[in-house]
């Protein structure tokens, strides 16, 4: 490690820049969330894939299976819930049966309550509240490896036209994607860590890579806080790119200024 560029009285050495960057995120996020006009966000290709797939299921008279992941309330789950809301709206409008597997981890119980409200609201808004059935949102245990055979069992029994798997999934993603393919279902997935994305890039008809999932969730929900999140992330990607380019130039001409700045 290199010597910090500067120290700040009262602040623990080596953590100043990190502290300032987190504070800056707070400021930017609150600023963008408070803005009347939402930040611009481009439409991601995942949405066209979802619309095509639900339409195909409607034509075939087959159900749609859509899951929002096994995690608690975290980054990927909230994106998954936004996409679930959109799929529930499409299914309610087209009278297509929607099955939502829930559960999978000790944190998922609390998310399930929010998901049930979300889907019920979608059917109510579409004027089809009588079609909403909590039975089609089964809780498949709080254990990842009991949730997986439960989810696979649903695919084998129901043989859906489309399987949309978003939110945070771990190793069970491959079980589900392969079985979804085996029962002839269109498989749309979202990977939330690199190994999953690589494997799902093979196993799915369409895979949302990295932030495409939260970006799709933000685009659909038009929720200012989700839009602000994507905006702040883009800004910090530019900060990261800037630091790396300047740092590489500096260090290769003999100055470790950027490295020492980062280590302050």
């Amino acid at each position, binding site marked *: 490690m290199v010597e910090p560029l500067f120290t700040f009285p009262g602040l623990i050495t080596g953590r100043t820049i990190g502290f300032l960057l987190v504070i800056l995120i707070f400021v930017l996020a609150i600023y963008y969330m408070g803005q009347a006009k939402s930040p611009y966000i481009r439409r991601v290709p995942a949405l066209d894939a979802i619309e095509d797939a639900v339409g195909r299921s409607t034509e075939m008279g087959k159900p749609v299976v859509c899951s929002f992941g096994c995690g608690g309330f975290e980054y990927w789950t909230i994106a998954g819930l936004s996409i679930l809301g959109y799929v529930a709206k499409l299914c309610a409008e087209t009278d297509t049966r929607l099955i939502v597997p829930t559960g999978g981890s000790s944190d998922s119980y609390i998310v399930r309550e929010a998901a049930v409200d979300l889907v019920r609201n979608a059917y109510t808004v579409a004027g089809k509240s009588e079609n909403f059935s909590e039975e089609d949102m089964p809780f498949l245990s709080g254990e990842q*490896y009991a949730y997986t055979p439960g989810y696979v069992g649903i695919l084998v029994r129901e043989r859906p036209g489309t399987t949309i798997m978003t939110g945070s999934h771990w190793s069970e993603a491959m079980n589900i994607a392969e079985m979804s393919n085996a029962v002839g279902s269109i498989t749309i997935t979202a990977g939330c860590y690199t190994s999953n994305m690589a494997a799902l890039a093979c196993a799915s*008809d*369409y895979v949302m890579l990295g932030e495409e999932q939260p970006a799709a969730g933000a685009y659909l929900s038009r929720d200012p806080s989700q839009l602000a999140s994507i905006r702040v992330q883009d800004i910090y990607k530019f900060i990261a790119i800037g630091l790396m380019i300047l740092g590489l130039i500096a260090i290769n001409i003999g100055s470790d200024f950027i490295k020492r700045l980062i280590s302050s």
Partner: protein
Amino acid sequence: MTKEEGFDLFRWMATYDKRWIYVILFIVVLYPLMRPVGMPITVSELTRDYYDQINSLKEGDIVFDSWNMEFSGYMELKPGVLATHRIFIEKGVKLCIAFGHFEGVAIPDVVFSELRSVMQEYDYRELDDYIILGYILPNEAAVAALAQDFHGVVRQDWKGNPIEGTFLDQITNAGDFAMINDYTTGLATTFEVRHMVLTYGTPMVVNCIGVSIPGALANLDAGLYTGLLASTRGGAELEYLIGAPGPGLKSMDAFTFGHYMLIIFIIIGNIGHYGWARRTRYRDRTGIR
């Protein structure tokens, strides 16, 4: 394919029942395990660096031995677990063992029964040389608290024996460990990086499953890890390096056949795809891409 068309090899290559892959994978794995061939193996730079890190430990050094794996994860990391613990026992390193998953409770019996002979040889005993604390890493708050005030969180081992008066008296926070040795399928490893390595600077070596290798390489390159052993193959290379053949080297035949089987099936799939699917304008049923 109606009878009139007759057998089309390309069509079969593109549409054969995938369950044949499952049957063949069972066979190519089970057969060499029962009739080992014993193929050569090369040792990678990654494994040598990992070995150098483990080998740098001295007698009496206290290692935080973090078993962040389900029992299934142990099936993949077994070679690395057995090989490194053999080194620890021979060097007289003290181990503070903690689990990151409740299935971890079933692993010590298996590990220490396999290493019974070397433990007897070096008189390596529970409570004197290693202490099992049990499933004490269930979430991030638990790891952070343990790192900051060790004895404020833990007062007894997994069987209820007090840890006062043992070698753990020398530990007040995570900075007092000579090293963190982590076997991981994910779980609490990220929390240990944040609250032990980053905050206290304790060096950390990791034996991770295949899925975690890309992320682990990034942490190794960034200096957060000081050593990385990659999945079953890394464990087999370590067995070879220390001259203690075990389940890792025994599995390498099946490993070779399993990889070559997948490669052959990929080639078959591509031939079938170009030889039949593309020729008959077989519309991909999704029409999305």
